[in-house]
């Protein structure tokens, strides 16, 4: 049976060709337009053939902020077609989950992977990228993550993707206005300390902590005066016990809290309540927790449509089969429950003068949200 999750999109530059796309599994097939007739009724002659193209690829291998759509858009990129019989066409559709055996069996596959070699379950985005990196690219995820975000010498954020074009541009404008000279800042999940250094350049004293010892080694090597870095297994009991009470004016957290809601591995169980309790204790009264997290609705949503007038298809909100980000309500309520007050919420957009597909999409559908939460004065 044809899956109800399938849509058809015209190929760019040549609308005689079509993309059959399962919006949940993000698998697809390029076909010529006779495929529609074949899906409705098998051809009468056994000798009839159809052209198909294998156009699927794991587009996020270029980065977490790369086009998440997973098909080649233009027929130019499709390569040579295969001439196939009706039976071979149906087999190709089954392989790409356009045709499914039955609804129940298919739906059972929408759970997290048990391991990177678990091909039976689709897994969420982190499961899928982990499996792709380890199994197909043979790359270590932590090294790959650095390469997709930073320049080769790790001294700057890449300007050729949305990290640079949206997040960094926003923070370079926002942080100097928000942070006071001489402020004490905790950069939680600091990675290699890029923003720790930037905040130190604004006159802050910054403690950067991260569970990844390789990242902290780089942070220490590149650290500017005013920064200090430590490895801490944040989210585990006791990890932040050494933080002094009421010692920070700001806690800065970027692309980190999502892992407390949807752990990166189904075996992990970091404890958000412990973390928030430590952060509350560590902040001075009136201090601010500043979080920038991926937008729960649009991060990793397919970039469909014309480049200048993009659209997307939202396939989930509450049930997180693919997404790795909690809903806005889940996220906000969890932090409010920790005793904080919500002060400000901003969606991040790129500079409107940029017109590439990624910026056009991000200009319509925000990929990050900033929230400021305050610890009450008394």
């Amino acid at each position, binding site marked *: 049976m044809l899956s109800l999750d399938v849509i058809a999109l015209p190929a760019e530059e040549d609308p005689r060709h079509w993309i059959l796309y399962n919006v949940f599994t993000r698998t697809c097939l390029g076909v010529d337009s006779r495929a529609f007739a074949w899906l409705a009724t098998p051809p009468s002659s056994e000798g009839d053939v159809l052209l198909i193209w294998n156009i699927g690829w794991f587009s996020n291998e270029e980065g977490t902020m790369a086009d998440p759509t997973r098909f080649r858009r233009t027929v130019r990129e499709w390569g040579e077609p295969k001439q196939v019989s009706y039976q071979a066409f149906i087999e190709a559709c089954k392989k790409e989950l356009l045709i499914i055996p039955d609804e129940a069996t298919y739906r059972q596959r929408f759970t997290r992977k*048990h*391991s*990177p*070699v*678990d*091909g*039976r379950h689709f897994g969420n985005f982190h499961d899928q990228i*982990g*499996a792709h990196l*380890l*199994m*197909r690219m*043979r790359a*270590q995820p932590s090294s790959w993550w650095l390469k997709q975000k930073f320049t080769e010498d790790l001294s700057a954020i890449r300007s050729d993707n949305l990290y640079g074009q949206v997040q960094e541009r926003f923070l370079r404008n926002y942080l100097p206005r928000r942070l006071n000279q001489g402020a004490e800042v905790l950069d939680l999940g600091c990675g290699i300390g890029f923003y720790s250094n930037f905040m130190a350049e604004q006159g802050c004293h910054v403690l950067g902590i991260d569970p990844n010892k390789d990242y902290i080694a780089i942070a220490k090597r590149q650290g500017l005066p005013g920064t200090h870095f430590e490895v801490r297994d944040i989210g585990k009991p006791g990890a932040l016990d050494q933080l002094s009470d009421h010692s920070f004016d700001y806690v800065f957290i970027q692309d980190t809290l999502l892992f407390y809601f949807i752990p990166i*591995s189904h075996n992990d169980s970091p404890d958000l309540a412990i973390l928030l309790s430590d952060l509350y204790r560590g902040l001075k009264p009136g201090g601010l927790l500043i979080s920038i997290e991926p937008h729960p609705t649009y991060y990793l949503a397919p970039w469909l449509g014309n480049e200048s007038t993009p659209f997307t298809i939202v396939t989930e909100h509450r049930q997180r089969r693919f997404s790795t980000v909690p809903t806005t309500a889940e996220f906000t309520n969890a932090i409010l429950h920790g005793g904080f007050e919500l002060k400000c919420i901003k969606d991040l957009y790129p500079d409107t003068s940029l017109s590439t597909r990624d910026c056009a999409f991000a200009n319509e559908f925000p990929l990050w949200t900033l929230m400021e939460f305050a610890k009450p004065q008394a």
Partner: protein
Amino acid sequence: MSIKDSVLAYFSAKKSLSGSEQEKLACRYLDQGVIDSMGIVELMNHFEEQYEIRFEADDLQSDEFQSIGGLVKIIERLSGRK
């Protein structure tokens, strides 16, 4: 040493495997914690180098790959020998 013995020896060195040979071959080594997810890369590199083979993505994502006996069969198939 046969491929089967070599694969069994590899996993036994990671964690003591109990039961008959048949039970050991049926062991789903990830589910039973013989190696963890990161150990898969080491496993792939080890057998690819030893037998001069290349696991394809379809092999790695197959159900067969997840048991010791299944892995033996994949290596036998790719290397063309037993």
